[in-house]
């Protein structure tokens, strides 16, 4: 375990060195973020700075997965990386039990948010979205993944453009929804300061709560109708992808740990679902076996004692 940590640390340190070597301004920025994070957990920074300075939203997201992700999960991660220019992708985390490494990793990468994809049994995908040094963290189950590679989604947008975020009213109705909204605003909203961000707005990320689940969609915003380019601007949308559905499981107070402040009573683990299905399938067999046993028992009961006047006795 220590060797993994060491390797990851080394990589991160190298990255940090590179970043520092490039310019002084960048280092200063990071200092701002660190300061604001360490004392109050606020990301806006510059609370202590001079009032003339413009307030900036500074976010950086560490994106990584556990070992054992399938290609579909990997592609989903790639899509998110390509959509969010403020994401720093890291190598796969070797262990699923040692999540306390993640805050350290995030710190080494100068990240104040983390998206951690955890794959289990090569089929179940969980997503941890966490605020970095002090929490909170949300654990969600990812279902119905469609990546951008699918040819059905015909939209396209600038790489690194800042997307709009749209939350439906369901987020404001519950306390956990509000918290999730705030956290997603930090993680999925591209800050204007992101180095690779491009200035224009040409796509929108949609989060909607339906059936106690969070549905994610990504649309391209087209202002001109391609059929009548000289007509009045008519906004239309074309889906870019990816799509997925998140079922919140738990919200923890800390970063990858701490007290549970919310747990979803509706959540049924995918393993339980699968086993229920299997049990349902096995029911038929069990019924048949029971019936067989019962009928043989009845047959046994019906058998009569050998009669005194039986043929074999009389004519022996």
């Amino acid at each position: 375990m220590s060797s993994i940590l060491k390797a990851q640390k080394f990589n991160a340190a190298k990255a940090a060195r590179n970043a520092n070597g490039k310019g002084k301004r960048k280092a200063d920025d990071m200092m701002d973020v660190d300061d604001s994070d360490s004392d109050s957990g606020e990301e806006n920074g510059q609370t202590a700075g001079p009032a003339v300075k413009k307030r900036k939203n500074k976010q950086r997201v560490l994106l990584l997965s556990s070992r054992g992700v399938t290609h579909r999960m990997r592609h989903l991660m790639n899509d998110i990386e390509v959509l969010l220019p403020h994401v720093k992708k890291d190598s796969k985390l070797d262990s699923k039990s040692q999540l306390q490494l993640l805050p350290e990793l995030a710190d080494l990468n100068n990240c104040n948010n983390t998206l951690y994809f955890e794959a289990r049994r090569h089929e179940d995908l969980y997503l941890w979205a966490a605020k970095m040094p002090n929490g909170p963290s949300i654990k969600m189950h990812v279902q119905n993944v469609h990546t951008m590679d699918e040819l059905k989604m015909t939209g396209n947008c600038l790489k690194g453009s800042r997307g709009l975020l749209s939350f439906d009213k369901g987020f404001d109705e519950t306390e956990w929804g509000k918290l999730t909204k705030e956290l997603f605003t930090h993680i999925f909203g591209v800050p204007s300061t992101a180095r690779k961000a491009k200035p224009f707005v040409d796509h929108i990320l949609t989060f909607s709560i339906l059936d106690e689940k969070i549905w994610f969609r990504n649309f391209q915003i087209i202002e001109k109708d391609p059929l009548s380019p000289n007509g009045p601007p008519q906004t239309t949308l074309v889906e870019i992808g990816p799509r997925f559905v998140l079922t919140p499981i738990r919200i923890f107070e800390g970063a990858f740990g701490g007290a549970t402040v919310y747990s979803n009573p509706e959540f049924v683990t995918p393993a339980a679902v699968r086993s229920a299905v299997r049990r349902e399938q096995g029911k038929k067999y069990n019924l048949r076996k029971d019936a067989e046993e019962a009928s043989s028992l009845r047959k046994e009961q019906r058998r009569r004692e050998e009669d005194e006047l039986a043929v074999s006795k009389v004519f022996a």
Partner: protein
Amino acid sequence: MPSTAVNTVKKLKAIAAEAIQARVLDTQSDDQESEDDGGVDEEGMKRLMKALGEDGLDEFDQAQLEVALEGEADVNGDERDREEIDGEETHTLEPDLVQLEDVEAAIDDVIPTQKVEINNKVALSRIRESIQLDISLPWTETLAVSYPHAIQVDVNDDLSRELAFYKQALHSATHARLLVAKSYSDFPWTRPNDYFAEMVKTDVHMERVRQKLLDEKATIQKSEDKRKEREGKKFGKQVQIEKIKERERGRKEMEERLKGLKRKRKDTLEAGVGDDQAFDVAVEDAITDRPHKRSQSGFGSGSKLSRQSRDVKFGFGGAGRRLKQNTRSSTDEFDFGHKRSTGGPSRGGGFRGGAKGGPKRLGKSKRLAAKNK
């Protein structure tokens, strides 16, 4: 955390023991009674319970015990809350849940075990406030928009669900556009046409998307054509019959006309050949009369199509095969009585041409002999 749970259980047991002790003391007369009331330790308690068994307590005692247990649970209410917040699985040790599980085990049902819901709203709002972005930040820093309606559609109806998401996105996009136009006029929104940059999806990928769309369109077109053809087949037969009838009628008419003509001219024809020309003219008139009649009755136009368009319409069979044209070998040949061999080297069949037409017929006797053999 399990340690606190064990503590809770211990405490419960201790309280229960205290509650029943008074009764126990006068029903039982063991040496355990003599233990002092204050310090009922765990081991002693266990022994006591064991000695008591189930039948050691009468109904009244059991009721009392239950009451005591419940009271204890109420007292420990806040402690249990804390346990829930901590989120450990200790609740399985709590008496009510244990009972529930027993019942379930008895009926062997598939109902999942009831989970304890944790929803610590106070903590959630506190955490949210702690991470909240500064309110004084301009909106352009986050670009987050709220949709004023909750989405309420059938989850399993794909079409209406996606439509609801689309509506949400569209509403948010237009709202944000208006907001930018109104309050943040210097915010760059639309990409100028001459701004080229890398896109999220590569050109190769977009080409594949386009190709897929085209393919889909072609498939739809194809199936539509097929459908039309199938429908046309139903009426096609009737059309064919109609056409044949029409042709038949035309032929009959023509014959009748010619017959009439012949009848009229019968005497003149027999008289001599002088009126031959007049008859030809009449026949021609009768034949050419037909198209005039047709045009009058509304079929087709009177004007003749040009050669070119007739070729296009009816097809031009192509140039002749030049079967009757001279070739080099035929020019050199001076034997006119035999079949010409056009093309290919002449085999000099000119002199022995008669022998070529199969074996010569034998004499009668030989033929008969062959037949009787």
